[in-house]
């Protein structure tokens, strides 16, 4: 794995179901599956009183549970684990603001939105924007753009002309 602040981020439920996977390092589908499976099991096996950091393979894992979802980042050895926790927290706040009191179901049914939000916050494994407001504004604008692109067709569909 080459140097990267965050190598990958996984979101998964308490039953081990993946809800989001963002990879910032080049790995085949097979390798990704194996890593996800192993890491998810390792984290689910940990007791609640244990700390949020663990060494796994040659990486440091930072994870935190929010309600029914585990947010898990793999970072480089020299990275600041405490600030990674803040990055995870910021992402949760963004989701919360966007969906209005976010829950796991929101992320299941709107997974592509969760990715879009993540991609406005992180790029290449590093934070690109440190202002909550700016991230949400960008998403809002992009959503608007998407609606405008789709609008003409849906109107026609509505009146049954397609």
């Amino acid at each position, binding site marked *: 794995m*080459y*140097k*990267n*602040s965050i190598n990958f981020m996984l979101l998964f439920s308490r039953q081990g*179901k*993946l*809800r*989001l*996977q963002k*990879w*910032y390092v*080049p*790995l*085949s*589908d097979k390798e990704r*599956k194996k890593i996800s499976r192993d890491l998810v099991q390792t984290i689910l096996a940990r*007791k609640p*009183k*244990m*700390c*949020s*950091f*663990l*060494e796994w393979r040659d990486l440091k894992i930072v994870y935190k549970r929010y309600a029914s979802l585990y947010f898990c980042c793999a970072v480089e050895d020299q990275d*600041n*684990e*405490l*600030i990674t*926790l*803040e*990055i995870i927290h*910021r992402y949760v706040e963004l989701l919360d603001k966007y969906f209005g009191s976010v829950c796991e179901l929101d992320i*299941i*049914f709107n*997974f*592509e939105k969760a*990715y*879009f939000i993540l*991609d*406005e916050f992180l*790029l*290449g494994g*590093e*934070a*690109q*924007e*440190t*202002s*909550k*407001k*700016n991230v949400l504004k*960008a998403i809002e*604008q*992009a959503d608007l*753009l*998407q609606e*405008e*692109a*789709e609008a003409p*067709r849906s109107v026609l569909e509505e009146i049954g002309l397609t």
Partner: protein
Amino acid sequence: MLLRELIRTIRTARTQAEEREMIQKECAAIRSSFREEDNTYRCRNVAKLLYMHMLGYPAHFGQLECLKLIASQKFTDKRIGYLGAMLLLDERQDVHLLMTNCIKNDLNHSTQYVQGLALCTLGCMGSSEMCRDLAGEVEKLLKTSNSYLRKKAALCAVHVIRKVPELMEMFLPATKNLLSEKNHGVLHTSVVLLTEMCERSPDMLAHFRKLVPQLVRILKNLIMSGYSPEHDVSGISDPFLQVRILRLLRILGKSDDDSSEAMNDILAQVATNTETSKNVGNAILYETVLTIMDIKSESGLRVLAINILGRFLLNNDKNIRYVALTSLLKTVQTDHNAVQRHRSTIVDCLKDLDVSIKRRAMELSFALVNGNNIRGMMKELLYFLDSCDPEFKADCASGVFLAAEKYGTDRQTSLHITPAGSYVRDDSVPNLIQLITNSVEMHAYTVQRLYKALLDDISQQPLVQVASWCTGEYGDLLVSGQCEEEEPIQVTEDEVLDVLEGLLVSNLSTPVTRGYSLTAIMKLSTRFSSVNRIKKVVLIYGSSIDVELQQRAVEYNALFKKYDHMRPALLERMPIMEKTAANGPTEIVQTNGETEANPNPNIAIITIHASNATEADMTDFVFQAAVPKTFQLQLLSPSSNVVPALNQGTVTQVIRVLNPQKVSLSFTNCLTYTLKGSPVQDLAEVNNFPPQSWQ
């Protein structure tokens, strides 16, 4: 079917099989839709495919479709297309090169959100070839005044540099005024870019050192400025940017006095003024500590940093304790005294519930043991050894031995190592035996403790070996109840022999262990009065199918019969073993090696005869030997240190070699002497010992 409909449907599946069926059906429909080149539903179909892919189902047939979506003019298509590319493609596949042209076009798109998509995708998964082709576009965007694009371009440039380091130079001009930006997004990503460049190139590092004052100023503004709602996190202004700047300062200040001095004040300020009630404040403090420890900071600042770590150790939050222990482990060598002050807190962490914290506390504790604190530390560490998880035991036991050896007195050493003995690994057996032998006043206590351990459990082979060796050696002390340190055990000779014989027949004992116990029994023939019983045992094993035991028993038998007069001398107490100095390979001048028949199969007795055929006497003659770790050597005093000239006499010296692992005997010798006024040194290796000396 709409995406959400599909998700809802799939979630109603009650079994894995049911789910698979639904997925297969939907995939088939999607495949035919792809074949029909349907533009309208392509986006929706790819989205559905991405959902199924996340559930673990194959989606490779959608890869090309992603490319088609990226090439579309509709923003919705591009959004899903790029997402699909990032999820389904990786740089190992050729197909992803087809994206290059699309990305190039989109980097120049009139809509910044499209440009953003392209930058994001390139910065996330661009291959080296793509990066090479598109670096120019990225560099252009790095100079734009549009901060939305500039910040993304900066991180994209970081990715390009990581993939194609040679391209780093081309981004240098664009970095000129990056730090003058007011926009925090651009500032943050610029600092990341500068960090990347400095870490990769010493020239860049030297070039960017001049930015230190500017970075210090930016950091100062962040700390001193009032509440900024946009960037506030629990009362701290843009902690992400602060941490990044601190990290860049660390790199710039390392090994550079001037830069380190320039940042001294701001580091002290951050260290003392940052609010520590929440994780975010501690994250900044942590980064500050790392920076202080790495640059050429003055001692006052370093002590401040270590004290921050000491406070971290007392924090309720285990994450904070974890990073504190990790950092202290890194600094314990360089700032040993400062870390010592926090020893008691560190030792308390041995009782923590978290495995990672315990392990770090253990490593740190061993690093802090010294002659002054060994008593207290050993108590804690032995308690830890008893109660810790199995994965720690071997390492902890080793640590205990090393510490006892290095800092303990004989008495303490025995007290410490016997409880630790249960956790020894095979290779520690000879070391442990040596330690026990040398702790002379503690023999009675040691043999009692180990004998009790044998009564408890005979499954741990290394421990059993050490215990039987001890019992054979000091059995007389055991039955005469001479232990002072604790209540002497009441045990008869027969009981002891029962235990040792039990080891001989137990299924749990390995052949090596059996060897130990047979030898122990034999030794007791000179220490106990029940010689007849011992004779009987030895006789029986003379026909053992285990060749090793058979040989020993036969030799011991011979000792009873023909060589009974030698038996007491041969089986007497082992003398103190010295650790011999190791020297280089040797060239022997004149030495004969001889081995005597020896009933203790672990010990070879070698007598050296040194003679001198030259015309002058060799004076100050000293013979030294070096052996591999598995042996222990004892050199008894030589008969003289003058070797007379012209073969008029020899110097004799006896070496006893303990070789419990039955490794082929060899050692290297160093001879030093003075001949005709000049000092001479000769090195040699001896390895032609007859096999019976070590088998």
